[in-house]
């Protein structure tokens, strides 16, 4: 499919912003949604809307079939062993917090270690900080190399037999670093620890295989992978999820309820208290169908091609710093010397180019980079090299503009 044909699937991209055709380079914050996803949710609300797992009526059956059908699509998409291991949540943050509350707070004890990296998003730091405060466990960080990667030697020297939990991102939302999750999982397991992976920036862009990676928990969001906001997934190994207590209690997740005690449904429903995010799950299912039609390997290859082109073109610009390793996922983070990224982003916006500026919910990483903020351009299947050319032109305009004004 040509880029033009792909873009036609995304109505939002066909508009002018501030008098220029929109160039959307902020998919790492949230991706745009194709027609098939929007229409799947519209069809659900127009024709099938009903609560799931309760009604004996026809609409209830249809809604349940579609909701559970979406779970099946997720299971196949990430190659989980069974749908029991696929829990629908509100997003990556909720997924990680579910592990922190339902697992870490029960299992960790004083003297235990939680191992993280300095490139984590706040949502993969703070739940562990809080769990550490609650249990008396300590936090440790795997040191980073100068290019923003971590080596397996550093993982080996940080993870010890006292380590009970390793929480690491698969792909950095700032540096684009792709971490060797399978190998890190192996080191964690050799030391008797579980591994929790933030997959918010990986699942939308590459093939992930739960059985191959051998992760214990894996979290991701629907809205970064062409799906709607408000839906995400927590994958967990069945044996661990069975051990865990639910985090939310109420309707939908119960088996028998008495006046003084109750029991829980089987997996995965014991973690889905209340009416679930039915339309969101259906939209996510449609997004998975959409992405699968292209093939995740093709999407990754396409994005890395753009990222390489962007690195090449941006490195030709004087007075511009690019952060992160050469080998990376589909994003480039940069700063123009002497121009604050907010100002860069405002000038780019005046040219119709949407980029993210700020600390990207990674304040410890900003500190490590010794910057207060950066600008970030992130790519998806609907971007191509012409978007990068527009970005580079925009950056030149920003440089000229601030060169003149300053």
């Amino acid at each position, binding site marked *: 499919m040509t880029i033009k044909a792909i873009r036609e699937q995304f109505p939002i991209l066909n508009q002018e912003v501030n008098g220029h055709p929109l160039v959307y380079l902020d998919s790492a914050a949230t991706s745009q949604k194709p027609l098939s996803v929007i229409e799947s949710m519209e069809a659900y609300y127009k024709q099938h809307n009903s609560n799931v797992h309760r009604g004996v009526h026809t609409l209830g059956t249809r809604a349940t079939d579609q909701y559970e059908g979406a779970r099946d699509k997720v299971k196949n998409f990430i190659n989980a062993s069974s749908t029991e291991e696929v829990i629908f949540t509100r997003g990556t943050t909720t997924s990680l917090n579910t592990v922190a509350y339902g697992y870490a707070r029960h299992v960790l004890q004083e003297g235990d270690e939680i191992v993280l990296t300095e490139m984590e998003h706040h949502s993969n730091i703070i739940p562990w900080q809080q769990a550490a405060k609650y249990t008396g466990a300590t936090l440790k960080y795997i040191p980073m190399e100068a290019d923003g990667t971590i080596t397996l030697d550093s993982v080996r020297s940080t993870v010890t037999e006292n380590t009970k939990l390793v929480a690491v991102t698969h792909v950095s939302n700032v540096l684009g670093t792709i971490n060797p999750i399978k190998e890190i999982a192996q080191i964690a397991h050799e030391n008797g620890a579980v591994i929790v992976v933030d997959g918010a920036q990986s699942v939308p862009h590459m093939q992930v295989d739960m059985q191959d990676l051998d992760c214990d928990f894996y979290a991701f969001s629907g809205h970064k992978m062409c799906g709607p906001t408000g839906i995400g997934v927590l994958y967990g190994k069945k044996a661990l999820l069975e051990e865990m207590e639910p985090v939310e209690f109420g309707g939908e997740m119960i088996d028998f309820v008495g006046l003084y005690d109750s029991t829980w449904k089987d997996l995965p429903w014991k973690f889905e208290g209340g009416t679930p995010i039915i339309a969101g799950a259906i939209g996510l299912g449609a997004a998975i169908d959409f992405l699968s039609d292209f093939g995740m390997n093709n999407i990754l290859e396409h994005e890395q091609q753009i990222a390489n082109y962007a690195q090449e073109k941006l490195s030709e610009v004087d007075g511009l710093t690019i952060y992160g390793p050469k080998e990376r996922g589909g994003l480039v983070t940069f700063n123009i010397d002497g121009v604050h990224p*907010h*100002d860069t982003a*405002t000038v780019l916006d*005046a040219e119709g180019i949407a980029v993210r500026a700020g*600390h990207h919910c990674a304040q410890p990483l900003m500190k490590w980079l010794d910057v*207060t*903020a950066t600008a970030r351009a992130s790519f998806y299947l609907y971007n191509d090299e012409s978007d990068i050319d527009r970005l580079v032109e925009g950056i030149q305009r920003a440089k000229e*503009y601030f060169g003149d*004004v*300053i």
Partner: protein
Amino acid sequence: MSFNNLDTLYRQVIMDHYKNPRNRGTLADESVTIDMNNPTCGDRIELHLQVEDGKVKDAKFEGEGCSISMSSASMMTQAVKGKNIEDALKMSSIFSKMMLGEDVEDVDFDLGDIEALQGVSKFPARIKCATLAWKAMEKAVAVDEEE
């Protein structure tokens, strides 16, 4: 939006304050120190305000941020220095109105350089940058009154 519109945001006087900030630095112990940041974007200001006999005797700031937040801090310290507290707070509320795009031409104060920030009201994403320093000032006054 063209570059002409950008010019309404990045006025020359703003860039001058950004490049040559007034009152950058810290004050000794008798001042109130307020740390404030925009958690969504990372702008940070450390404001030192010395209040004596109901007047802002001195004001200095440190921090990091974009041209709008830092120039606004520079202008704010310049504007409130020497003013009595009541007038400083009045200016702050005039500034808030200005950020909402309200007409502030009829006010009693000579707004001086601050008026240059009027264009920020047309860039909703940047209003928080401009108001950070003023919020810090209001907080510093409140803390001073408590002490």
